[in-house]
């Protein structure tokens, strides 16, 4: 009997080993905020994928914010790029190396043309990506400047949604008297001021053609147009529109501050809508759906004196998944399967319905969208023109000093001219390398 048990155990072990050997292991580095609405639904989808594909051993590693970039940078430096990776279309943090060294495949050569035709032209526009290939398939087209307005609060104080900067500035004393911040911009993480506000200011006052000219060495950041944009940013603090304390406020602290009525406006990316809508796993929302409908609007930044691109806002192709360029055979097939599942109707509809983003997939019919999600595409329609997001258009050695400089301007320790000068020196070094 003992011998029989031993033989059966050995057979089971060998069978299990053989089954494991048949499985294709897929390492997937994924990015999602576990505290945001839609996290539970997202995880349920991956479980569904695993159940439907028993031949794939999906090893999914989830990280968020800087922890993600640090881990991916470490993987890249160790020569262990994950099989499937969440990435940015531009040289943002860890994605810079993926683009520079072409560590991911061109998805135009991997995904079937029939599948790609379901996506908007903006998503398939490779000029939006640093290496001018479809390194990742943008899941959304991101408006990095979105002003969230608490119109209910404004109404209660007899104020209206501002159309011009003068309107915005005029409401500062009234809001301040009630202990309410006018425009919140939590910039402790350095990138929000550049990505969510200054890119739009630069687009309005200097324009994309100016940035292109600087990159070609035909204009300088020290030219009047760009210094004026920095000076306007400085004015926001001098006029009390933005509170100096925001410079050191963590990015994650913004939604709570705004939802609790401590700021009349917050400038953020469109992706932040997900922070306010109902988390279906808990049934809780930072802003109740009824209030979203009645008291909150998504608007563009008001008209800036001297702007040449009226009602423009910074926008860029969104994040998405990329595939390690070295994959072949069964691994490549498994990775393709994963991408087609993620970009499939069911997954993308879920993402839209849970407030994560408005997908670039064009054949979706979401149901039960919360008011802020419904208002998002309406906001996009009000934007007359999209302009560069500077961390997507400039070299990291140039936009990093800008991120630092915007903090310096906010704190009053640097002047617009000084920041422009530092940026130009960095740009000169980039041009010299070329």
């Amino acid at each position, binding site marked *: 009997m003992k011998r029989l048990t031993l033989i059966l155990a050995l057979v089971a072990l060998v069978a299990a080993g053989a089954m494991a050997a048949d499985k294709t292991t897929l390492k997937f580095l994924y990015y999602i905020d576990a505290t945001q609405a839609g996290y539970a639904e997202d995880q349920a989808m991956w479980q569904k994928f695993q159940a439907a594909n028993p031949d794939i051993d999906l090893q999914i590693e989830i990280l968020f914010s800087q922890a993600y970039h640090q881990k991916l940078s470490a993987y890249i430096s160790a020569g262990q790029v994950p099989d499937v990776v969440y990435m940015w279309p531009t*040289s943002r943090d860890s994605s810079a190396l993926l683009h520079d060294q072409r560590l991911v495949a061109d998805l135009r050569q991997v995904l079937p043309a029939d599948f790609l035709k379901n996506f908007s032209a903006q998503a398939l526009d490779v000029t939006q990506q640093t290496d001018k290939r479809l390194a990742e398939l943008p899941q959304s087209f991101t408006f990095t400047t979105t002003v969230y307005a608490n119109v209910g609060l404004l109404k209660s104080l007899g104020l209206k949604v501002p159309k011009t900067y003068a309107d915005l500035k005029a409401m500062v004393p009234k809001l301040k008297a009630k202990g309410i911040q006018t425009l919140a911009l939590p910039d402790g993480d350095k990138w929000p001021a550049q990505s969510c506000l200054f890119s739009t200011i630069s687009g309005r006052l200097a324009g994309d053609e100016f940035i292109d000219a600087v990159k070609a060495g035909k204009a300088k950041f020290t030219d009047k147009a760009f210094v004026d944009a920095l000076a306007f940013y400085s004015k926001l603090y001098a006029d009390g529109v933005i509170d100096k304390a925001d410079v050191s406020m963590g990015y994650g602290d913004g939604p709570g501050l705004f939802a609790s009525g401590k700021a009349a406006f917050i400038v953020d990316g469109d992706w932040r809508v997900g922070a306010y809508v109902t988390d279906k796993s808990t049934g809780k929302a930072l802003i109740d759906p009824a209030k979203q409908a009645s008291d909150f609007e998504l608007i563009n930044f008001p008209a800036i004196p001297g702007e040449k691109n009226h009602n423009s806002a910074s926008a860029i192709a969104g994040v998405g998944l990329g595939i390690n360029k070295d994959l072949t055979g069964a691994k490549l097939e498994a990775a393709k399967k994963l991408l087609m599942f993620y970009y499939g109707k069911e997954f993308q509809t879920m993402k839209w319905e849970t407030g994560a983003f408005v997908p670039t997939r064009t054949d979706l019919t979401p149901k039960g969208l919360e008011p802020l999600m419904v208002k998002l595409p309406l906001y996009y329609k009000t934007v007359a023109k999209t302009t560069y997001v500077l961390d997507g258009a400039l070299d990291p050695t140039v936009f990093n000093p800008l991120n630092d400089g915007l903090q*310096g301007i906010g704190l009053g320790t*640097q002047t617009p001219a000084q920041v422009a000068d530092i940026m130009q020196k960095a740009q000169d070094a980039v041009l010299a390398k070329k």
Partner: protein
Amino acid sequence: MVLPLRNKAETSRAYWAFVTPAFVLYLLVFAFPIVLSVVLSLSNYNGGKMFGGEPWTIVGFQQFEKLAGDPNFWLALKNNLYIVLISVFGQIPLGFLLAYLIYRKIVKWGEGWQAILYIPAIISVIVLGIMWKLVFASNGLLADMMNGMETNAFTAALNHVLAGGFNVTDDFVRQLVSIADPKALQTFANPIPDLKDLILTGGYDAAHLDIFRHDMVNLLAPKWTPDFLSQQDVAMIPIMFVTLWCWTGMYLILFHANMQKIDSQIIEAARIDGATEFQVMKNIIVPNLSGVIANAAILCIAGSLNTFALIWAMTEGGPMNVTQVLAIYMYQNAFIGAPNFPLANAVSLSIVAFSFVLIGVTLFIERKMGGKVE
């Protein structure tokens, strides 16, 4: 029965047989990364597979030149030196003095004091960093306390103005402007007419002066903000304070443990001969502990140049890099923004080089003073 080794060759073979495994392990774990770090700092390697990936070559001292020309590097080094100074000239003397007070029973409940002072050293520095960040934040505990005082002072002045009645005349508004913070008035293009208009259209009346008082405090009272935390050098003060608070207890324990090894009869004899407590400390305790003090200084220097977690949790090196130290500078170059691995390795080698220099200086001073490292 143990057989003696037969000849020198056999002794040598036995020696290598025992030493080789540990030596190989040492080379792999310690020496190889150091050599690799040197190679990378001299290369143009930019991530990916080291062999079989993008080609890379040795390009010389480019990264070190880049470091020398980067003001952020020198700022980080200066901030590191502040940490070294507060550690060597703060933690060690204070730890020594507290240990002496407890050892000589000059203070009561010595064991209790030891425990209290050592507690910060056993709590995660990340937790401590976050806790102190909340204290020094622009809307944190310190700012709340300071603003509480500002509010009280302004409210008293406002009550004095209101004692004359709530009549929104030019004179009344002029009095409000006179007690207001000049910075707060910057939100108005023309303070007197604008403020008057705001009061007249704000629905304020004499029956609800509490609302008026509340709003005027928000609008016109001086606001204390910890601006010093954004100024170079000054921004390091809270970090130095927390560093001192955090690690002094560790040196207290180290010195106290070693003081207990000193023969108490020597101290008793000195006291009977009329030596004061200060003379006992200076002529008996310090010379006996000179080696321990030198070792503590070496630990302090090495730890200070490596400091990362506490500052990262408190400020992440910001705002505007004013609290950046070398380890954060290295980390940001390796993992944030546009990763530059050769530069990050050059920074790490610089940290090692500075450590050697400072430790060398410490040992030199210690030898000059006649002590010896234990």
